[in-house]
């Protein structure tokens, strides 16, 4: 491209201003990336981590009330149900109360069949199956506490009091940038043998794998009818619905963060647009010269637009890249923000927004440049 030299010369005419304008884009898009991550943490894009094939069955009274283990066989008998697994919420912490994370007592037999996306190496899993006090932990939690396979970790129980010793037998990984890698799994049997008589034979919730996602609503109804009028009535939902309802309880906080951040994002862009306009206005004379020596109106317009697009794209992609890098290696509140990823989709949206704003902020000055009457512009000092 033969005008590259001119474009570059114009870009670098005021290096400091270039730096500041690119810097504004950098900051704006960095903020965008960061807010997108927070939105994901508070349940945005729940459809990505859930499966349409799974249902969640909880006690109708509330999620903290248990269900009897005997329901498992009865759910399995319902046509369309492929597999059933169950979990108990353990509710403990490691060393200090601040170190909270989700521990589940799992049904070892079916866990991997119902949640195939959470993968454990075969040898680690077979060790875990044999080890009564074994545990499998998500990669993020393992990293957070520096646990390795073979470590012994004591977990202090809150709901089930006492100190519980576990051996880390395996580490599971989810799909990159998607799944929750903070869970801690251990044998349901281990929990069962240590709880008091009154709490035996109870599970926290069931996860049901069905053959056909289109049957979800029907099967939910069948399950709830099956247990209606029993002492333990159930409430079933597709996994995505369950998850969405759960995070909706944080709704207001998420809404606040996102809207407030959004407003400011645009303020920053306003600042950038203004700077671009100043930069073009300063060069009115030069643009007039370009036109005087024969370049078309369209060329001058595209030229100005090109400059603002370059600034926007360079600054914006650097900002998104920095946000990605930061959030990959650092999570400010790991106990609460389990899913802390900047998703590729969000990055693409960010780039599109950058392009749009770059174009919008360049457009007005570019039109001015196009409409410029050479005689007037040259006469102006």
């Amino acid at each position, binding site marked *: 491209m033969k005008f590259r030299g001119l474009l570059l010369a114009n870009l670098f005419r005021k290096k400091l201003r270039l730096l500041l304008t690119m810097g504004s884009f950098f900051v704006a898009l960095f903020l965008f990336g960061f807010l997108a991550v927070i939105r994901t943490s508070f349940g945005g894009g729940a459809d990505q981590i859930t499966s349409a094939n799974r249902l969640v069955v909880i006690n109708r009274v*509330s999620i903290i009330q248990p269900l009897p283990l005997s329901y498992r066989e009865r759910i399995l008998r319902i046509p369309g149900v492929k597999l059933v697994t169950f979990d108990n919420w353990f509710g403990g912490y490691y060393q200090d109360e601040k170190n909270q994370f989700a521990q589940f007592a799992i049904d070892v037999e079916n866990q991997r069949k119902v949640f195939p996306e959470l993968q454990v190496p075969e040898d680690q899993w077979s060790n875990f199956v044999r080890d009564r006090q074994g545990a499998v932990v998500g990669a993020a939690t393992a990293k957070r506490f520096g646990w390795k396979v073979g470590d012994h970790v004591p977990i202090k129980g809150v709901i089930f009091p006492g100190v519980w010793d576990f051996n880390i037998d395996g580490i599971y990984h989810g799909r990159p940038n998607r799944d929750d890698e903070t869970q801690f799994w251990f044998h349901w049997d281990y929990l069962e043998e240590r709880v008091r008589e009154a709490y035996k034979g109870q599970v926290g919730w069931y996860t049901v794998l069905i053959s056909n996602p289109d049957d979800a609503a029907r099967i939910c109804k069948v399950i709830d009818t099956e247990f209606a009028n029993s002492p333990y009535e159930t409430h079933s939902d597709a996994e995505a619905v369950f998850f969405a309802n759960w995070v909706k309880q944080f709704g207001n906080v998420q809404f606040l963060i996102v809207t407030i951040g959004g407003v400011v994002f645009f303020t*920053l862009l306003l600042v950038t647009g203004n700077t671009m306009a100043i930069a073009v206005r300063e060069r009115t004379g030069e643009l007039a010269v370009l036109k005087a020596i024969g370049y078309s109106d369209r060329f001058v317009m595209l030229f100005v637009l090109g400059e603002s697009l370059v600034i926007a794209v360079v600054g914006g992609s650097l900002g998104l890249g920095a946000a990605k890098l930061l959030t990959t290696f650092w999570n400010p509140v790991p106990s609460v923000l389990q899913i802390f990823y900047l998703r590729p989709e969000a990055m693409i949206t960010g780039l599109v927004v950058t392009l749009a704003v770059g174009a919008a902020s360049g457009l007005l000055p570019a039109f001015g440049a196009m409409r410029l009457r050479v005689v007037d512009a040259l006469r102006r000092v």
Partner: protein
Amino acid sequence: MPIPVVYNLRSVRQRWASAVVAVLGITGTVGVFIAMMALAKGFKATLVSSGSAGNALVMRNGSTSELGGSVSLDQVRVLEDAPGVARGSSGPLVSPEVVVIAPFPLRSTGTDANVQVRGVSAKALDVRNNIKIIKGTFFHPGLAELIVGNNASNTYSGLNLGDSIKFGGGTWRIVGVFDANSSAFDSEVWCDAHVLNQIYHRPENVFQSVTVHLTSPDALQQLKDAVTADPRMTVDITSEVAYYDKQSQTLSTVIKVLGGLVAFIMGIGAIFGALNTMYSAVAERAREIATMRALGFGSGSVVFSFLIEALLISFAGGLLGCLSALPLNGLTTGSMNFQTFSYLAFAFKVTPDLLLAGIFFALAMGAIGGLFPAIRAARQPVATALRSL
């Protein structure tokens, strides 16, 4: 000799468009900063005001929240006779309690949120003397009757005085509404602990926590010592204030950390905006500055003058930011509390010290954004600047 401030005021008026943009950048940043901190403050204030210094909370040792506790009736009897426990006309002021959560539909979205349902003893209002019945009556012990908090009644549909509702396998009648001074109890629903245990198929005479009204706040240690010495008591005693303060930790930390980070990133952006504005001001006025220098103003006065200008702009931005955050004060919102899995209504709390912090934040941005352009202005060689167009 200092350059008069009028000069700065006039020059801001001259370049009002770019000044307005810089002001807006700072306004947005300060507004968001104050809003986020007010949110965290409001949440914390709601929980902390739930605790009263005259009360102690007794839970099984190791429990971090009421949901995980269990205290037997025998242990409650021991507490009733323990030293430091206040006595009223109805005997020792001790309320053994059970907490469950139940889903009710939010008025705002129609979706369910978890409400804390607290089973209390008949003496609950004597133990927590900051809570008053404002409509209807207290529940009758032994009957499936509810009294609901003021906020709960406003937040959820179907929690009005006189309504009958079903949850936990029982049908309940709402006989009263209580006001708890916008503490966390305002988001709760109360009933008789024994009835709750029955309906929820929980073991009878096992409670999750016991709230004790002390003879005085200082009596806490006395009670603690007595109970620790008793081998039958496997419990922890904390002051109610400390308990609720801890409960508010997680969410208020999340809001503060995230809000602080967002404000910090925005602050950098706003500084860039201010820098751009001030640099272009310096560039446009190169000749003016050179003229002043030629007239005898020192380079120190030039730096000072430009700094003043930047601070004026940022002060205006900070003021506007405060004004825009002010209407949030008292606005009620809600969120799930991580420690209890239940939904809690709370209001933004914009306090004078937050506003002050906002102004300081703005001035800091202005100082950083103005200093470098001011130094550049002072360094320009007088002769060249005068000669240039």
